[in-house]
């Protein structure tokens, strides 16, 4: 921010001469308070408003791993154009308490705006790096709501404040507030609107500058024309499963998976389905497999430790070739680890967990929208290939809110009815020369010989066998069907330069930061590409020639570099391609990648001694310097 415009008095209704609003492309706002202050509600309103305004939005939140209370933040980045990450640094920090200020002032970029509650926060007056805006949030709320009101409603005051400062659509916001609180007491809506109006009026009366307006969206180039919807990743995944014709599931609560089962428990009965809460993780996957065996493709899911408990039954699903969807919302591990923080450290467990040679399909969505679509793809693969399919999402995706184009349901919806047609006399559930198709109970078998499904090695009819030859053949069959799948997978597109210094490879929630990092790296003068892997097992065919076109393949993932210096996907890729150019950028701080971390990681690898000297040292050191800040609110003013 060019010059500070600290208001001269708080609460004074003196007329001020306002400057014209600054035009901005996007903004990163961090709201810091306690978990009972409703800051996530504000974040939700802002995100949904952005969605309804055809703006892009991404949020990021932390909740304390405590039963009640504790410091909490909600960060929202919204604006015009594609938003790929929640932002490395914040443009505006709203601090409700002294601890919010102390803990989060470091996230504010120099020149950013600090908004603080004068009733609770004493900022450092000599800190001139930021524009300090003193707002009587608590007093203002209590005055507005009146009577014996406590400070409940501070969040609505702040929402009003932000609505004025960023010139948000007040009518749409009021609509959202009424929708949200409409079912409750009328007083609640009234008080919320009183606090909102007080917050809205405050900058009007007290600020000269600090007014912003988002650049207009070019409708001609914007999106598909379908309306935007706004939701978090777990919600998108749950409804994706419903669109995929899944009507049955079973689970056991664990953070951050639980909200998927909560949604399905509420929603599935409307679609004639059932979701069972089981006594434990093992019962959950067992019940889901029972549903699948009965002809109704089912889902189960969990997070980290819960997935481990499901592993024996998952091995059965591989052996019995039973279709199943298993969701793992990854979190920090091992063991109970960091339940409310993100990690991508269950990849090996997802691909190799369980006993014996047990090939299965592993997919990972790249953003909230993809959570919806990957559910459809997982269900299609599970049905077509009679295999368990794991969806590896993560804590970051599960709770973050994004806006995306509403899917075309009419074209996507899958009919869930099981196939109970009579099977011919020569029916073999496990043919060696074709993909397994089960006959669910209720289906007549013309030969009168009913099939058995089993975790024992079996012949083509499903009968147990100890034949070494058959075991080898059946093991190969289970492997080959995944190779058949691999041959049908689309080759992932490379964004950026299709050959050159560096190829950045990401998976899961690394996609957005990876895209932004690519832009940054190319601006610094490198020839670089970005490749994102959605299909982790099997990998799509054709990666090897792509990798061969770059001097370094930098695989970025949220797990530890391990004993040999490679993250889990990097290790798999090195094993698969024996390519020494594959290197790792890893971290385990419980947060998603910042763009600057990816850029710095690439820089480190380009500077390393073992690297060919073709990459200019100047470029590498340019990358190693602190990243340029995100577009400033005043950048285009």
């Amino acid at each position, binding site marked *: 921010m060019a010059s500070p415009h600290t208001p001269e008095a708080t609460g004074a209704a003196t007329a001020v001469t306002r400057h014209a609003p600054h035009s901005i492309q996007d903004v990163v706002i961090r709201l810091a308070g306690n978990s009972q202050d409703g800051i996530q509600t504000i974040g939700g309103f802002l995100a949904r408003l952005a969605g309804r305004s055809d703006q892009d939005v991404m949020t990021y939140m932390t909740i304390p791993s405590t039963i009640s209370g504790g410091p909490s933040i909600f960060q929202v980045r919204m604006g015009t154009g594609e938003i790929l990450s929640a932002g490395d640094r914040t443009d505006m920090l709203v601090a409700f308490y002294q601890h919010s200020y102390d803990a989060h002032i470091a996230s504010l970029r120099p020149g950013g705006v600090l908004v603080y509650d004068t009733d609770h926060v004493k900022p450092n007056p000599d800190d001139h790096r930021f524009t300090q805006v003193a707002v009587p949030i608590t007093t203002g709320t209590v005055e507005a709501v009146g009577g014996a009101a406590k400070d409940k409603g501070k969040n609505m005051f702040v929402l009003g404040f932000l609505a004025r400062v960023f010139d948000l659509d007040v009518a749409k916001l009021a609509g959202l507030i009424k929708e949200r609180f409409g079912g409750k007491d009328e007083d609640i809506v009234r008080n919320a609107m009183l606090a909102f109006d007080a917050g809205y009026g405050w900058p009007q009366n007290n600020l000269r500058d600090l007014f912003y307006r988002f650049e207009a969206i070019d409708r001609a180039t914007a999106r598909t024309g379908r309306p935007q919807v706004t939701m978090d990743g777990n919600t998108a995944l749950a409804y994706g499963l419903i669109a995929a014709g899944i009507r049955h599931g079973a689970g056991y609560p664990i953070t951050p998976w639980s909200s998927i089962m909560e949604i399905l428990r509420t929603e599935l009965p409307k679609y004639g389905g*059932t979701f069972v809460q089981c006594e434990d993780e093992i019962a959950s996957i*067992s019940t889901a497999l029972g*549903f699948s065996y009965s002809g109704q493709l089912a889902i189960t899911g969990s997070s980290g430790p819960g997935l481990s408990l499901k592993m024996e039954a998952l*091995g059965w699903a591989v052996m019995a070739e039973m279709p199943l969807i298993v969701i793992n919302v990854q979190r920090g591990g091992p063991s109970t680890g960091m339940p409310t923080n993100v990690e991508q450290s269950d990849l090996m467990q997802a691909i190799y967990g369980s006993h014996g040679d047990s090939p299965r399909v592993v997919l990972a969505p790249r953003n909230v929208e993809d959570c919806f679509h990957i559910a459809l793809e997982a269900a299609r693969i599970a049905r077509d290939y009679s295999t368990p399919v794991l969806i590896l999402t993560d804590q970051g995706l599960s709770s973050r809110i994004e806006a995306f184009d*509403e899917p075309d349901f009419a074209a996507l919806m899958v009919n869930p009815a099981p196939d109970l*047609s009579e099977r011919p006399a020569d029916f073999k559930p496990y043919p060696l020369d074709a993909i397994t198709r089960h006959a669910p*109970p*209720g289906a007549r078998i013309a030969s009168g010989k009913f099939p058995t499904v089993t975790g024992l090695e079996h012949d083509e009819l499903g009968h147990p066998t100890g034949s070494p030859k058959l075991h080898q053949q059946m093991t190969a069959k289970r492997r080959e069907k995944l190779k*058949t799948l691999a041959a049908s997978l689309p080759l992932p597109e490379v964004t950026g330069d299709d050959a050159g210094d560096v190829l950045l490879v990401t998976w899961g929630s690394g996609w957005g930061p990876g895209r932004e990092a690519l832009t940054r790296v190319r601006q610094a003068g490198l020839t670089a590409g970005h490749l994102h892997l959605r299909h982790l097992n099997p990998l799509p065919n054709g990666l090897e020639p792509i990798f061969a076109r770059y001097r370094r393949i930098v695989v970025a993932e949220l797990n530890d570099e391990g004993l040999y210096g490679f993250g889990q996907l990097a290790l798999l890729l090195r094993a698969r391609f024996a390519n020494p150019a594959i290197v790792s950028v890893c971290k385990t701080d419980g947060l998603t990648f910042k763009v600057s971390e990816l850029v710095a990681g690439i820089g480190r690898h380009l500077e390393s001694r073992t690297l060919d000297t073709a990459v200019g040292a100047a470029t590498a050191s340019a990358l190693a310097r602190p990243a340029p800040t995100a577009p400033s609110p005043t950048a285009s003013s």
Partner: protein
Amino acid sequence: MSSSTLPVPTSPAPAAAASVPLTKKALTADHPTWCPGCGDFAVLAAFYRVLEKLNYPHEKIVTFAGIGCSSRFPYFVNTHGGHFIHGRALPFSAGISLGRDDLHVFVFGGDGDGFSIGGNHLVHTARKNVRLTYVIMDNFVYGLTKKQTSPTSPLGFKTKTDPTGAIDRPINPMRTLLNSGATFVARSHATQVNHMIEMMTRAARHDGFSVVEINSECVEFYPGAFDAANPRKGGTWTVIEEKKHDGTPEDAARHDVTDEVAAYRLALQPWPGCYGVFYENKQQPTKNALEAGLIARARERTKQASDLALLQATFARMR
């Protein structure tokens, strides 16, 4: 298997076929692999008769099992079915039953599968009252793995894992089942074929979670375990006399199967106790019915909207 272009088969066309009464011949599959003299043969023979009697459509019968000697059962019955992992046949079969209310689900297992590794599932399937029939072939020993202590092994029984005799108190199956909320609890003996047929038939007709525990001797590792209840071996075979509600004085002394406390009293009798139906509760709704009720009410609230309309309406609210 070198090809990586496996063809994906298409579903065959449906064809009509008339239902025929089930016979032992139609129900027989692979020859049992149990040891000669194993009590499980008698349970299998009785089960064929049960299916003949019930005469369900053949393709709608499902038999499933966990791991153990008795859990090989589904291989020897020609119906849809299979063999799941150790101890988890109950939650698996609950999925079948809740997924497809038109099916008749039978689950088979032994004392290890049912009371040890699957103990938690037994409790929860019972309390949920999932509609299925569970037959536990209890032999008081781990046979498939060649004589280790089972959860029902009596105190002092010498096994490879308790060479000086079992020191952990055994599970009392009837007490455990009653305490878990099972709505049909019965006990039988593998030497009493007609009694087994009667118990399993009544269990299958019970609308809810029904369990029959059958003492089935392991001739290899625990011969003579159930002689105390076998008259041919000098034991006492005591059958529970059920109340007939005929107003006679002797009826007062008979067992009321709906009386849970009376069932506990029978369960606490010293070994070998008595055989028959301990408890039958027809009032408790099944989970199948409760879930169907949830669906019916949810469908009513949404005015029977199509799946497509429902999903579109949900997303419209998230705009």
